[in-house]
Every structure is written in structure tokens, then in C-alpha cells.
């Protein structure tokens, strides 16, 4: 399973599909201050990214990346690798 949940952290691994929103959303509602670790996350559906932004989730492992995870940093901006 690409999502492992416990009380203080949600660990996202591999590609997180739109269907996983059903698991992640209730967890975020219950643990609004817990971190979501995307260090091993290779990709996510728009719905997942939107959910993380909308709920203001604390995201770990996005800073300093050069891929899509830049959207999860405060600027919500992505700079393509060769230009970044």
C-alpha cells in the first residue's frame, strides 16, 4: 500500500492515485497537525496535491526537491530542472 498511516505521520510511497484520497482525507481531518512525508513519493494525482494544499497539511520531504514536489512547498511553484 502506497500510504502508511499512523498518528503522527502519513508516509506516502510510490504513486498516489486519486482513490487514495479516500484514505488520506479522513486521516488529515483527524490528524490536522501531523506531518505527511513525501520523501519516497514518486508522483501524485492532482486530487492528492490539491488535498494537501487545501487542508494546509504539514508536508515533509518536499523542500529542495527538483520534481513535482516543489508544488508542495510554500510557493506552490515548480521550476523545470534544466532551468531551475
Amino acid at each position, binding site marked *: 500500500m502506497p500510504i502508511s498511516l499512523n498518528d503522527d505521520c502519513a508516509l506516502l510511497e510510490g504513486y498516489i492515485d*486519486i482513490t487514495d484520497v479516500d484514505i488520506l482525507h479522513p486521516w488529515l481531518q483527524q490528524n490536522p497537525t501531523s506531518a505527511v512525508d513525501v520523501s519516497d513519493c514518486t508522483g501524485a494525482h492532482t486530487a492528492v496535491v*490539491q488535498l494537501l494544499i487545501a487542508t494546509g497539511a504539514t508536508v515533509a520531504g518536499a523542500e529542495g526537491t527538483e520534481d513535482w514536489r516543489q508544488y508542495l512547498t*510554500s510557493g506552490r511553484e515548480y521550476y523545470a530542472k534544466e532551468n531551475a
Partner: protein
Amino acid sequence: MNALLAQFVAESRDLIEAASKALLDLEQNAQDKEQIDQLFRAVHTIKGAAGLFEFTPLTKTVHAGEDLLDTIRAGDVPFTSDVADVLLEMLDRCVDWLDQVEAQEALNEDAAAIGDALSQRLRALIDAPGIGAIPELSDAAPEDTALPWPDDVPALPVSGAVTLVTYTPSVNAFFSGDDPLRTVQSTPGLVWSRIVSPKEWPTSDDLDPFLLHISFRLVSSASQDELDAHFAYVSDEVTYEAIVSAGDAPAEGAIDEGLRAMAEQLLVSQRSLLASDQASPAEDHCTASVAVVLQRVAQAVSIELSPELDADNPRATIDQWMAILGAALRKPEPKAVAAPPAVVEEEQADEPETIKQTASPARANSHLRVSSERIDALMNLAGELIVAKNAMPFLAQRAETMDETGELVREIKAQHNTINRISEELQSAIMQIRMVPMSTILSRFNRLVRDMSRKLGKEIQYVVEGEDTEADKAIVDELAEPIVHLIRNSIDHGLEDPVTREASDKPRVGTIQVKAYQLEESVVLEVLDDGKGIDVDGVIAKALERGLVDQDKVNNMTRTDALQLVFLPGLSTKNEVSDLSGRGVGMDAVASMVRRLGGSISIFSEKGRGTKITMKLPLSMAVQRLMMVEIGDGLYGVPIDRVVESQKIKSSSIRRHRNAEMVVLRDRLIPLVRMRNLFACPDVEDNDILSVMVVDVDGRESGLIVDKFHPGVDAIIKPMTGVLSSYQCYSGTALLGDGSILLALNLREIIECQYH
């Protein structure tokens, strides 16, 4: 027609209406950015929706229109009346095409050719606008047409023009299997992108994670073709802007935009002057004059021209100068680049500017779109119910004879009251649905006035008052034609040209005013102009010449009465038929249209000051309240809104003048009509007390002497059909609750009969 297509047609019509209005407003104020945006959005939405169906000519034409509007919005093409003409023509064409789609679910065969021609004309305006018709500029690299770097896009290491894409996917994008972020991430030439959050997020509990709330801004270095191909499936959700970074912009930037545009325009005109006069004897003078103009332009924009003018070959120097000025006068440099990427804060995405660009047009979902036929059917049924409930009092009467205790009668009466109340409420509820504001028709005449004033070279302002006044849709729709005619008449015959107006101390710009207001149970429409007014003597002379009235009658007429002669069939005061205000269709047509709707019309005019035409119409045509009168054992109905008063008078108070009988009521002299005589009923013994019903017909009062007054009744008046339709003195028939038939009187005809 399938439901989707029907909705497309209905929505597109609304959008076209909105676009036309925005276009006309824009003509008044070309700088109104909001109107440009609204116009653009309307056209953009039509294009998007048309793309769902295979109406290629429609899509293509609207697309060209959208592109033109986009350049206008960006300030690259000035908005002029000529541009408005072509855009209005495009909207007219769309209306035609929608009619075709509605009728046959396809476009006519000629649509492709018409569409091609029209889109070419639209595109020609983009490619060769008033200020940019120079080949060098239209072939220019994207940098020259690009917009300055937007403030909300961080500085990026790109060179030359790049494309800024704003991608606003539909809120239901996930349900159609879209993954917009993936689309963004796979954009060819992607340099940068940002997720734009909505202004406010729902709380975590209220959030529906399967609805899409975010949108995207991205910068790509790919060509427009590549981007078009990439976003092909969501083409109506993306907008493109070419932007250029600060480093690539021309070095100068201090030239004021207005000055720059003017200088550029001068440059264009000089170029065409040189091109047209080459090899003509005037060439030398022409070159010299161009040189002077270029020097002045350079001076005005503080640009040094070099080299000095070569007297032997001025043409070569001028070409060099042109190049220098051309380069200097291209688009102004982009604004300074915003803060570096790392410190761009999230709030920036919430700036109103960004929201405005990404917001899709709001959709009202609290409204139902119902076809008017369904409402009509409902209205007819409610009308039938009202007539059917009228049977209950008769039923009660019959029950009285059978039921001695009176209990049944009481019950029937109680039930009648209940049904009466409900049916009246039902009727008024349906009436409310059918009520539409006058603005639905009045606003479209803007266009008529604009086109006609341009054609005739008159300056006219069109003023509408009371456009929120509501009336039955049927009445409002039917009114459109008479009003068009009246406005045309006013423009064509009433308002003078600017020179004549100024000569007679009037403002240069003529005014046509349409006023709508509610008066009791009627809606009143006035069409006023401040033109030259109507020549009453001319009207009288013409009426006499045509034998429409005799001299005797004319002698007894007031000026106001004489003016009403314009409504007589066969009287047209303008000798030649103009191609604008109808071919031979005169005021009589307007009058008959208004009267057919159960309304009345009157005219007031003052020579040199203007004309006012007043139309009074019932608020609704469906159910009418009639006052019943008895004449020689027959029952007749008179529309209650025509009844001024009902009086019993002494026969001794009647005054006679030759054959005419009159009575003075409240200081007014009222001519009398003996209805028994008119209907050829046998004479009765002279009654000392007479029942007089005073009615108002076209502003004139007359007293009808009837046998007896009866109570009022709600009835649906059906027009007379078959053989009966030739009896002009009845306007229709109505079914009464006891199954008998009531003839509704056509008062106008009755009064006319009396006089002839």
C-alpha cells in the same frame, strides 16, 4: 432536438445578446475594460460550447472573433466603429446559424463559405490594424507583439518571447478522468508553473476532494502549435499570452504609450505615402514631406536620427530613419521583474488580478430554463380552471331550488370561495413566471439606433427609462415590432440631421427616448423624440386628399384629434418610401398591432419640438376581467380596464345636437351611443332612467347606453373564427360558467360605427 443541443442554442442566444450589449456599450466607451472582458468571455464561451458540436463554420468564425477581441483586450488593436461593425456582423451571423441549428440541427450548405469569408475579415483586422499595417511589424517576431512580463510570474532564465498559459480546468475535471497536474507537468517546453489556489478554501470537513478548485499558470518555451496540440482536449480551459522578459525588450522605454501609438501611426502613414507615390511626378515633394514628418516624430520621442539627410538620395536616408524609428517605437519594454522565485508568497496567488483571470463565468444554477410553450399550456389550464369555477355559482343557484335546508348551497358556496382563491393565486403565480422585464426587448434597439444613425449620418442617443417594468412575455414580445417601427419612424422622419438641428438651436445630438411604466392593470410605453414633430396640417390635407375624412369632420376636430388621423390605414405623410422605415407599412400597422393586443395608442406632437407616441397595453393577455352589460336580452362583455365609470342618468339630462346625443358628466361632455339602436333591437318604452357605461377608447371617452349592468367576470377571450370573424364589432367570445357564450365588444369599432 437533443437536450444538449437545445441548451447550447438557448445559452448561446443569451450570450450573443450579452455580447451585443457589451459591444454597443464599448462603442460609447472604448476604454471600458470590464465590457471588453465581458464581451471576450461571452464569445469565448460560445466558441467553447460550439466546439462540442460539429458546426465548424460557427466555431471557426467565433474563434476568429475571439482572437480579435483578445488583441483588442491586449491593446494591440484599437477598438473602432469599423471593428464593432464586423463583430456585430459576426454576432448576427451566429444568430442566423443558431436559427438554422434549431430548425434543422445542421447549418446550411453555404455556411462554410460565409464563415470563411467572415473569419478572414475578422483576422484581417488582427493582422492589419489601424496602427500596425506595416509588413515589418505584422511579420515581426513574437517579441514585438508580446506583452510585458506579468508581475506574478517570477524572473525566469528564458530568452525571447515565451508563452504564459493560464489553465483553468473544470470543477468536475476528475469525473471526466482528467489529471490536470499531469497535463501541466507534461507541457512541452515547460519552464515554470504555479498552482493557483481559490480565494478561500472550504474547511477540511466541507472539502469535497473530488471537485477541482485549483488552476494553473505556466510558462512554456514551446511554439504555439505545440501548445495547441498539447492542450487540444481542454482548449476552452486555457488561454495563452505571449510574454517577453525584461532583458529582451528594446532598450528604450520612456516613451509615453499614447505618444508611442501616435508616432507609430504617423510612421505607418508615411510608409504608405511613400509606397503609393513612388514613380509619380509628386515623388520629390512627397519624400521631402516624409523627411520632415520623420524628423518631427524623432524629436517628439527624443530619438536621434542618423545619418543626416542625403540630398542626392533622400529615399535611402528615409529608409534608414524608418528602421531606427520602427525599432524604437515597437512595444514598450516590460515592467521590471518581480521578486525572486524563492520569496514569492502564496498569497500572491490570491491577488484579485489572478482570480479575475482564472475565474470562469459564474453559472446561476438556481434558475430553470423552461420552454414558453410549457408555461403557456399551464396558463391555459389555469384559465380554464377559472372559467370552470365560474360554473359553481350557477350550480349553487340550481341547488337552491332543490335543497330546502340550504346546507348544500352553503357548502357549494364555501367550496367556490376556496377554489376561487386557489385558482386566482395559481393564475397570479403563473403570471409571475410569464412576466419579463421590458429590457429584454428595449436593450436590443440600441443596435437599431446605432446602425440607422450611422447610415443616415444623424447623431442620436437612445435613452431607455423603466426597462425593469414587467409585463407578460407575450405582450413584450409582440411589442417589439411596433417599437422598432416607431423608432425607425422617429430616426428617419422625426430627427433632423446635426446641421439642421444646430441651425434651429437644438443640441446636435438628437434623442430618442423609450419610457415604460406600469399604470394600474396596464403597461404604458412611450416613444419620444425631440425631432421636427408632425405637421398636423399636412396630415389633415393628406387625409382629405385620400378621402379618409370629410371636411365637416375636420372642422370639428381639435388639433390633437386631427393628429390621430396618422393611424388611419392608407395615410402616409412621407411621399417617397424610404428603405429604412418600412416599405409602405405606416403608423396604421403599428396601431392595428397594438389594438390586436387589446391596447390603445395615441400620438402627441409639437411642430419643431418632437413627437410622443403612447401605447397602453394590458399586463397580460390570458385572462381578462370583463364587465357584463345587457343589451336587448343579450349579454355582452366590456374589458374592465376600458370602463371609466357606470352611471344612471336621467333622459332629460341628454343634450342633442343634430343627431348626436351627449351628456355632461363631471364637467365633461360625453357623446352617447345607444347600443339598442346600434344592434337594431326593437325600441322599448322610453325609460326615464338610463344606464350609461363610460368607456375610454384611444383616450376619448364615450357613453354606451345599455339596458342593464351585470357583475364582472374573469374570462378567456377567444378570437372570433370562421364566418363570425367578419363581425368587426366583437373582439372575441368567452365561455361563461353556465355554458352560455359571452360576446366581447370591440369598443373602437362600435364608436366608429356610431360616427359613420
